[in-house]
């Protein structure tokens, strides 16, 4: 069984984004970039499935600038077998990304595609579901547990009310939630080895997908700033305030 894991290069989780003063977007110049945290969890899950003897090959794919090779190398160092970069400097929407991934999936023919549930830059939470729709395959979104069971995958999902378990017929699409696993750190020998693993770069134009944006970003602004308040001296002062606002 083959597993395909799409990964995205995004602003590092620990960096506070700054809106550009001209309102055209978020300033990414000289900002630390990393693999999207949910995608890192997806890579880890694929590796664990392979280590359990239930998968034979893990292919990672990224769609983005030449620099996205860095996140692919990180995934290879964790344990993925080979990588594909669809190179573009355009800012693609989830629908376009899903169409490109469909083309890759038809070529690689994975039994399972594992993606992060959302990227922490645009927070769209769409690509996995869209890919599942385009491939007419089932989807197990927001997974906190994934079990391969013969021709099926059993997925426990984090939902608003708690947890839900569904069984999907393979091939299927799974998107990861935070508690699915804790990704490993790549060891130095594995980082060295990853440099020799295959990484194929192809142009977006070669995918035969219309990636024209459907949405126009008119402006990007700072959210309304919440004024910091006051510090109170003790619990009695807090009790008085809670009584004043009518909650006690």
């Amino acid at each position, binding site marked *: 069984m083959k597993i395909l894991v799409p990964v995205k290069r995004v602003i590092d989780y620990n960096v*506070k984004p700054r809106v550009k003063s001209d309102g055209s977007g*978020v300033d990414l110049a000289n900002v630390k970039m990393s693999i999207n945290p949910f995608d890192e969890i997806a890579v880890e899950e694929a590796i664990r499935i392979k280590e359990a003897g239930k998968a034979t090959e893990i292919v990672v794919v990224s769609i983005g600038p030449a620099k996205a090779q860095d996140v692919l190398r990180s995934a290879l160092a964790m344990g993925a077998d080979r990588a594909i970069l669809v190179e573009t400097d355009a800012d693609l929407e989830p629908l376009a990304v*899903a169409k490109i991934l469909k083309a890759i999936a038809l070529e690689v023919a994975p039994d399972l595609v594992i993606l992060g549930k959302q990227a922490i830059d645009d927070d769209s939470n769409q690509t996995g579901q*869209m890919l599942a729709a385009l491939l007419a395959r089932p989807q197990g979104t*927001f997974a906190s547990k994934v079990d391969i069971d013969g021709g099926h995958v059993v997925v426990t999902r984090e939902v608003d009310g708690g947890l839900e*378990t569904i*069984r999907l017929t393979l091939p299927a699409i799974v998107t990861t939630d935070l508690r699915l696993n804790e990704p490993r750190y790549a060891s130095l020998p594995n980082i060295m080895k990853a440099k020799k693993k295959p990484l194929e770069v192809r142009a977006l134009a070669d995918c035969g997908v219309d990636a024209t944006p459907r949405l126009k970003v008119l402006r990007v602004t700072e959210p309304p700033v919440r004024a910091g308040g*006051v510090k109170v001296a003790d619990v009695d002062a807090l009790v008085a305030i809670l009584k004043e606002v009518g909650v006690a």
Partner: protein
Amino acid sequence: MKTLVWVEHENSLVKDATRSTVTAAAKLGEVDLLVAGEGVGSVAEMAALIAGVGKVHIAESPAYGHALAENVAPVIVELMAGYDAFLAPATTTGKNISPRVAALLDVAQISEILSVEGERTFTRPIYAGNAIATVESSDAKLVITVRATAFEKAEIGSAGAAVASFAGPGDVGLSVFVGAEIAKSDRPELTSAKIIVSGGRALKDASTFAATILPLADKLGAAVGASRAAVDAGYVPNDYQVGQTGKIVAPDVYIAIGISGAIQHLAGMKDSGIIVAINKDEDAPIFQVANFGLVADLFTAVPELTAKL
């Protein structure tokens, strides 16, 4: 514009997020509803009472019982032949189904809108709410998820809208519901509570969390939330998590206890009416958004607060 709104329901009740979504849809034009599920006649009757609703489609089948996206998305796609926009609340159900619908219709989805600026123009949060994007769609049909806390709940009227049955394609045979562990609690639900008491990693462990946070929540009639760190550490289940990837809440009063205030947590609660923070670190970022902060050891301050209220 004709809009179709997904009715989120649970235990035969229409969830409040549906009414907020109706408010957003009404800004675009006429509003019809879709109730999908098994044995959901009473849900449809209840939904029909939401003010401003023209018509309620009811799709009843065991195949739609647990809102499996594979079975439900084709129902919506079929109905969308007669509509210009589909809106769902940005709940885990709405987030699961809507992008599947959008892809089948070959349109972009606009996720978690905060406001309707025009017939095709919306605002939405990006970068964990650290920036707000204003986007305009060029698609023939719109697919939108709605952040419920950003819109008032539509009123419940007295005159019921017409209810019409819709079959849809039924079970497409790709997925099966196995089971669910849904937390049962007498406390208010997190996303609709007026008061929330939330705990962080400083609560040490599950029993300390329970012994410290729950008595205060009970005294205030509050819902209980938690930071990601507290959930990851196993103090409370996942459905307590408030934040960018957990629940987005906006109660009248949010009391953050032992929560430092990572941006991912702030993204989930900074639209609350009043924020109160108790933390022993006076430099904790939570104090930058809190209306009232108390720098204190929570293990003495919280029991004292509970006793004095």
